């Protein structure tokens, strides 16, 4: 029963995954941004479980569990711990572009991702790659776009995490049997990255009284 609906369900997860990525580009509230990221991670977990059951891949079920533990539970917790509630719950976040323009560029980036992914999908023709690879790639590119346009340190970190989610969303379809050791190390890497960046944000806040990293611009060539 499940196996019949796996593909449409995976497409459903993918669609919402893409929406959350675009939402993160355009949301003004910090906490909303973080929640969207957690929803996105949950969609990644769901897709990994679906494909894992369908391909009977224990590795993918492990990916799902690891993603849930690290991205839905550990990272928000680590960030709260390292940042303190004051920075963590900051309300407004600024960005370089206005929202309609950002959305327009996001749409173009999604199209670009399909353009890049299609030759690879047709060359190999593996199940689920037609859904997961372009959407994962779009997540990667939209995350990079988020890092570029956001001025706030915390929002840039979420952009990095969205990039990572995108890579994992693609990877569950292209390499469903990645050795568990690689997954475990990747699982360690992501929270460590969040912790280090979180601690750095706290230092910057303590030293300069602000987390608007775009104002850090003393080092440059003239």
């Amino acid at each position, binding site marked *: 029963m499940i196996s019949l609906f796996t593909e449409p369900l995976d497409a459903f997860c993918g669609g919402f995954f893409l929406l959350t990525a675009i939402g993160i580009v355009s949301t003004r509230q910090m906490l909303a941004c973080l929640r969207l990221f957690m929803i996105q991670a949950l969609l990644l977990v769901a897709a990994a479980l679906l494909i894992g059951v369908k391909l009977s891949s224990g590795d993918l079920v492990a990916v799902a569990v690891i993603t849930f533990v690290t991205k839905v539970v550990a990272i928000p917790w680590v960030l709260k711990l390292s940042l303190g509630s004051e920075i963590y719950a900051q309300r407004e976040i600024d960005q370089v572009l206005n929202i309609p323009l950002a959305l327009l560029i996001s749409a173009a980036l999604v199209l670009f991702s399909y353009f890049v992914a299609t030759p690879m999908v047709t*060359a190999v023709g593996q199940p689920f790659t037609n859904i997961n690879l372009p959407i994962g790639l779009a997540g*990667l590119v939209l995350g990079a776009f988020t890092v570029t346009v956001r001025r706030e*340190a915390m929002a840039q970190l979420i952009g990095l995490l969205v990039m990572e989610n995108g890579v994992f969303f693609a*990877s569950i379809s292209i*390499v469903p049997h990645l050795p568990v050791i690689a997954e475990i190390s990747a699982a360690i890497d992501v929270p460590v990255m969040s912790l*280090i*960046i979180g601690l750095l944000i706290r230092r910057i806040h303590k030293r300069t009284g602000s987390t608007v990293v775009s104002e850090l611009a003393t*080092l440059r060539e003239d």
Partner: protein
Amino acid sequence: MLAAVLILPLLAALLVLLPIGHRGRWPALVTVLTNAILLALALAIVAHVSHAGALHEWNQSLSIDAFGALLLLLVTFLGFTTAIFSWGYIVERRIGATRTGKVRLYYTLYHLFILSMVAVPVISHVALVWIAVEMTTLMSAFLVAYEDTPASLEAAWKYVVLTSMGAILGLLGILILYWGTRVAGDVPFTWAGLVTGAPHMPKTLLWTGFLLILVGFGTKVGLVPLHTWLPDAHSQAPSPVCALLSGVETSTALFVILRLFPVLQAAPLVADPRPWFIAIGLVSVGAAAFLLLHIRDYKRMFAFSTVEHMGIIMVAVGLGGMPAHLAAMYQLTAHALTKSFCFFAAGTTLVATGTQEVGAVHGLIHRAPLAGTALFLGGLAIAGAPPFVVFISEFSIFRAGLADGQYLSIALLALFVAVAFCALTFHINRIVFGRAEDVPAHAIPRPCLAALVIAAIPMLILGLYLPGPLAALFRAAAATLGH
């Protein structure tokens, strides 16, 4: 032996935290000793690899070939000299810290940073190599921010965010290559496995994977136009950390890109990678050379020279053929040895004068003769003046390219290298000579001088004479890059 290389820094990272000794001498001592043992281990591994070929351990999950052994040797040598320099700079002069606790933290991160760098050539599985490269960034982030000034925090922020973005792009590239090896049949996902699997991979996977890795890891190498973070991080970090960042951290990321060169060549249907390597390299060398002309901070100057040298290595690999690849290995070694000496000299100058600005220091040779001499030698050596090792390695790149008839690439490369040479010697000349201000210089700690002397020995000797075992290692390493 390979396992010991990974375990030793991990043990040392814990040992330095023990609250023993006075004013941070214990962690300094432990660090010098463990890095000396690590260097001895690396020499033993090099000897083994040169005689018996690639070394495998732990059911092939750890392995090293000649190219990896060369990188390991460079990392451990710089780890050793930098440990001595840190003793003077971090422990005796207390730059950036007043509390011993912070000194201990420096040393813990130092060992973890070394661990992540030695892991890159030692680990077989390419996905795990990615983790090691990403860890080099994460473990060194707080070393860059060590002095806790707004400028160093800014540098650390740019460093972590930009190189992590690059690393995530690179991760997708690596996963796409893994996908390729699965499609190609059951080849192991190691560097050697990629070369054997490449002819059977769909070329679109190979090419997309390569481009993602080139952009992603190229960010960490500091290839123009992805280099923007590099001069900041490499100028704001404490000088011993700069020596490691510039000398070998960039090379560990470059190692991953260079490993893909034979993979692309093994797939006959994929576009020839050589023009790509040459073009990307030339852009980096050219941009860095002209940016070097108007520099105001002498540590920043050495950082831009790293961008230049990474570009030169890319060009040398792209020229193709055994003589050019041999020259590329020579250049990689020359850069690591010379750049670490330059940053030691810059750190010594900073200790003596208290400023990093080129315009603020005159007549250094009169104010602080030792620092002045070191900076002068380092500047000449990195610019590529004879008789230092960079001169020989750059010369052998030119010769290999000309013998192969690639006149245009070599003409451009020679032009850019000449511009960089003039820029570097001009700035160094302004600092070292001229009328000295009447401000007394600060004393230079003895460990800093010891590190300078030890770092200078190979930089000088290899320019005059290449020992047989090292030449054999270069040849074996160059052979791993294909044709």
